[in-house]
């Protein structure tokens, strides 16, 4: 009769290979897509990509077969394993990822200094679980303004411009 407690413990002990299959599967899919974009070019322009893509396909296939055999032998599972571990950090990581997308999306309108200040303070508050608000506010302010002085003023780097950069342009 199956023992649910031991079965669950077994699953936890065994490595989850599902996550390890993401890169090989993505590689094969990308190679197939790439091949579809070179069907009309002369063969001299195809040969190099077909050479590399075929090797990648074979290697990925060997890895997938190896993983299936390990699971069938009971040595591993198709779980996501280490990818999501430690699970307690998954929500933080997802919010940080969303904040990062927001940072890139907003920077074109708000410019480097304001967006960096907003991103740094919100991301630090998230990771610091709302503690040391004063320190985080000051640090974000110093870093974003210091970054502006170093990169935009001193190095004359092309950073995205926003209201702050346009406002103080006359000063520097």
């Amino acid at each position: 009769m199956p023992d649910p407690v031991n079965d669950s413990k077994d699953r936890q002990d065994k490595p989850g290979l599902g996550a390890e299959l993401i890169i090989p599967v993505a590689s094969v899919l990308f190679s197939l897509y790439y091949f579809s974009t070179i069907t009309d070019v002369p063969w001299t322009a195809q040969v190099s990509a077909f050479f590399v893509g075929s090797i990648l396909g074979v290697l990925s296939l060997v890895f997938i077969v190896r993983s299936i055999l390990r699971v069938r032998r009971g040595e591993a599972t198709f779980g996501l394993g280490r990818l999501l571990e430690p699970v307690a950090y998954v929500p933080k990581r997802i919010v940080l990822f969303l904040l990062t997308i927001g940072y890139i999306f907003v920077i074109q309108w708000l410019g480097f200094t304001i967006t960096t200040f907003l991103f740094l303070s919100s991301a630090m508050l998230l990771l610091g679980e709302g503690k040391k608000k004063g320190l985080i506010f000051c640090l974000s302010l110093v870093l974003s303004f210091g970054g502006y002085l170093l990169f935009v003023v001193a190095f004359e780097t092309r950073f995205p411009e926003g209201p702050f950069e346009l406002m103080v342009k006359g000063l520097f």
Partner: protein
Amino acid sequence: MEVDWGIFAEQFARTFTFWWVILPAIVLGLIVGAIPGFSAANTIIILLPLTLSLEPEIGLIFMVALYASSRMGAGIPAILVNIPGTAGAAATPLDGYPMTRQGRAQQALAISFVSSVLGGLLTTILALIAMPWLSQVAYYLHSVEMIVIMIFGISLIATIAARDTLKGLIAGFFGLMIGYIGADVVYETPRGTFGFLELYDKVPLIPALVGLFAISEAFAVIEGQSILTKRGQEAMQKAGWDATIEGTVEALRRWWHIVWTSIIGLVIGVVPGAGAAIAAFVAYQQSKTFSKTPEKYGTGHIEGLIAPESANNGVTSGTLVPLLVIGVPGGATAAIMAVVLQYHGVTVGPDLFQNQPELAYGPFTAMAVTYGIMILTVLPLARYMSRITVVSTVYMAPIIISFTLVGSFVPRGYLFDMYLALVFGVIGYIARKTGYHVAAILIGVILGPLLENYFLRALRISQGDLGVLFSSTVVNTLWVLLIVSLFVPWYLELRRRKARPAGGYDDEGC
């Protein structure tokens, strides 16, 4: 072309009087080298109005000092936070970062500084002596020879992926396929671009570097309060000046290792287009191949840090050789120097050594003086730089994400490149968490376009005849060397296994 030592000595003394140009260039070079997206080439372009207004000799000294120091600067974040400042330092974290995690950041920085300076100094002198012969290297290397050199590069993937070769090869070939994205150089047909115009000009290297190393690292480190291991935190509490001295002594004790790995850098640097990244990985591979303890590589092994740092500084002087002797720049920074010299009406080539020796020898003496000043100014800073590793990840992760993402925007000014860096960040994060090495993917991204370009050119010249790959003595010799280099590690490993009982080392490498 003979080397005039009298002029060289006079030039050396003269260069010292320009310390006021060299010192600010060192500070600037260390900063731009340490920030991903800011290369020496970009900085020199930004500062062109200043450089062009200076006397050609002073302008050249400024550019060379900035170039050499930026190479050293790129290794600092690679060691401290696993983020190479440039692609040339991409092999540095392989052993530098594990040392940091063990609380040996100060030693690692000292080793990196000593290796960079000694490697750079030695190759500068060697370049000066062997200039007439080194400059000929580029003449013997055509598309077919470069194909074999690129395959040499690809074979490095297996070295990086010591723990699971299959995973390493998948990561490397995946990187190669990513490197193939874009329009091909001959027919200009867009391939694998997903319809993005921004990818027609190939995958830009800085967003790939930022994403694979910095973004993925930032998302990974938030699991702990510190990037250091428990033992590392204890070691950092006790760290004093003795750690810097220890690192310096450890590097000096391995002087022979510095010598031969920096020569690898010099020779690869002479080949136009090969670059510091390839030199660093080749040196790492050779160092591991001929090591008595290859299993220690990737765990914070000193030789594994010395090899890439010596080699990428060896490249610095190597890239100047073809520029000054035959007028062909060996890299992007050397190309900008050529533009500045042309602006001042200076024609580079053999005549330069007769007509304006101060300009011909100047870059090498400036480089030697820069390295001399750098070791005195930078080495004492190792202790303070290493303190960054005790900063909590609560603050460090957001800083890494924001500043490196903006860094990926700088080279082309496309917002798209920031999104691209994020995509590479996701790929890098999955790779790190599932045991695929991000360095193997990066090697692929670097080598992919180079391999394809040479392949296309060779086949076009031979009108599609694959026999061109075995058409010269040089290329056939390179094929033999490639096969030998692939079999030597296997043979040596077999001998080692026979010689010692079973056992292993803890592997903390990423």
